[in-house]
């Protein structure tokens, strides 16, 4: 018997052409079933993209603001009595080797009103603090209107308002006056929001000398701010409390304002996981849609399968044809979804003023998930198609 009958393999190009035949014939169905996959992939890519973009934005903000600022606040000693920081605290902190800048602020006992016709009981929700004039440069804050306190201004009844404080008092320009206790104080400047220490936005700031002279301030600071070299932040942290308050170091609360921003970057993760889960569910539903489409496609195309078998297609060629069709179908959805997800990320990031970040791994993951779904959804229909008897398929009408 002759035995030169070896079935030929289709070239990759032919495999794609044959796999696309079924898609071209039923476009509406193709679009709808690819849509399911597209929604799933788009959700996942967008969620990852937005979360990464927002994180990148926070990181950029941290980079800009620096992570080398520490604050030390007067707290309570072991017995629960409030402690006072020494007047020389700033000078003592400056003597710590790696410290580059140190400055201070202090709570003062002054009620703030918009004007003297407002009853004393109705305060404006604005706090008065005495500040050293190097505070603004140490925190990296900026003046929005007017100017910051200078060496003359810190002795006079003049104030600079945080952005929220100005808002609450209804002050939009400098030169207006507010009441601090019974003293009329001139607003010489309004600050932009201070990103590292947002509590200062609600403060009306006066100079140390002016606070002593007009509001009975005793000159003891309540909060010390210092910046050191990046490498020595931990070391400075370790000695800061004891330096400021020898013998009562535990009564000083040291913190790093940039940690709050870093924590914000971390809190997004829970939400991101949830949204990724939702995307995965959408993807799963899309996969079921593809499987459904493929099963119907095989049922409808029994004749075509029979014809191909009579033209010499092997079982594996038929299997490969339907598997390819399923892969193309889900691949189409996946590619569309990845594009939509990336576009959504760019659009949203644009609105938020972020730099859009679409990690390559999320796109690669999307493609991999798509291919996996294509194989899983297409395998059963493809095997069914290949098992159809050639004559049965041909007789079907």
């Amino acid at each position, binding site marked *: *018997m*002759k035995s030169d*009958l*070896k*079935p*030929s*393999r*289709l*070239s990759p*190009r*032919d495999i794609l*052409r*044959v796999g696309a*035949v079924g898609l*071209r*014939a039923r476009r509406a169905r193709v679009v709808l079933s690819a849509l399911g996959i597209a929604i799933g992939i788009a959700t996942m890519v967008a969620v990852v993209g937005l979360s990464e973009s927002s994180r990148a934005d926070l990181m950029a903000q941290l980079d800009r603001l620096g992570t080398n600022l520490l604050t030390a606040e007067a707290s309570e000693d072991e017995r629960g009595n409030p402690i006072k920081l020494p007047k020389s605290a700033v000078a003592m902190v400056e003597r710590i080797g790696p410290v580059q800048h140190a400055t201070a602020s202090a709570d003062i006992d002054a009620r703030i009103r918009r004007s003297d016709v407002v009853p004393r009981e109705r305060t404006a929700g604005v706090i008065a603090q005495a500040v050293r004039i190097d505070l603004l440069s140490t925190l990296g804050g900026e003046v929005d209107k007017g100017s910051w306190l200078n060496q003359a201004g810190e002795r006079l009844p003049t104030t600079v308002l945080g952005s929220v404080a100005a808002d609450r008092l209804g002050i939009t320009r400098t030169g207006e006056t507010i009441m601090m206790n019974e003293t009329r104080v001139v607003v010489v400047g309004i600050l932009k929001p201070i990103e590292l220490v947002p509590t200062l936005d609600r403060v009306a700031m006066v100079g140390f000398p002016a606070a002593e002279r007009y509001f009975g301030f005793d000159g003891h600071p309540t909060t010390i701010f210092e910046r050191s070299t990046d490498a020595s932040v931990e070391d400075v942290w370790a000695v800061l409390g004891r330096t400021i308050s020898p013998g009562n170091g535990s009564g000083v609360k040291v913190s790093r304002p940039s940690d709050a921003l870093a924590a914000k970057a971390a809190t997004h993760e829970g939400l991101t996981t949830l949204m990724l889960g939702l995307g995965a569910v959408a993807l799963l539903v899309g996969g079921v849609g593809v499987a459904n489409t493929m099963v119907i496609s095989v049922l409808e195309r029994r*004749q*075509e399968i029979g*014809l*191909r*078998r*009579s*033209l*010499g*297609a*092997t*079982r*594996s*060629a038929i299997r490969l044809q339907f598997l390819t069709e399923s892969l193309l179908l889900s691949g189409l959805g996946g590619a569309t979804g990845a594009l939509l997800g990336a576009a959504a990320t760019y659009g949203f990031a644009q609105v938020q003023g972020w730099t859009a970040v679409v990690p390559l791994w999320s796109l690669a993951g999307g493609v991999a998930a798509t291919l996996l779904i294509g194989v899983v959804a297409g395998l059963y229909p493809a095997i069914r198609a290949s098992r159809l*008897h*050639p*004559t049965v398929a*041909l007789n079907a009408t």
Partner: protein
Amino acid sequence: MTPAPVIELRDATKSYPGGVHALRGVNLTVHQGELVAVVGPSGSGKSTMLHVMGTLDKPTTGTVRIAGYDVSQLSDSRLSALRARHIGFVFQHFHLAAGRDAVDNVADGLLYAGVSLRERRTRAREALAKVRLEHRYSHTPSELSGGEKQRVAIARALVGDPTLLLADEPTGALDTASGEIVMELLHELNASGTTICVITHDSEIAASLPRRVRFKDGEIVSDSRPIFPTEEAGS
């Protein structure tokens, strides 16, 4: 010299579950270059004959050799290769792919024979020229008449230069005039050397063919004459 047998059935039987005996001990030899009609009423077993001769189905018992290969000895994938290289099918209802032009439909006849796309298309044009459809290369099935569709289907069966061409009721879905053109074409192809087996219930069509094998209840009731074609018919 006797031409090689293309179809050889020896005591071939085919039974289906439920006790249906579609073929009961059929002996038939068709040689290269013949033009044979397998004729019989519906239910006579001629469709089963088509499936067995086309290697779409194996006999329950007995031997079937097509183009020299013992069908029962071949695996499913080798049978597929046998169909791809040695057998061309023409169906009553054409089975053309909608939305694809005549050239692509015909080129599909070579898809599973390991021929490159470019060559498939070249040979498809040649085959279409053979069935006199040079002017219909880029027409889709919906733009063709029934007779033209069947000629495209014949071109698809021919394009691989098969050892055996099997036509199942090739005129069954055509009007008389188109049917005559198709039959004329089959005669021409046979004259140029193709072995053709036409399965039909139509005695008139059968009468126009040189050899007629009549079927009834799964058995051959008459075989007009096992002719051996003359030398020049095969050249």
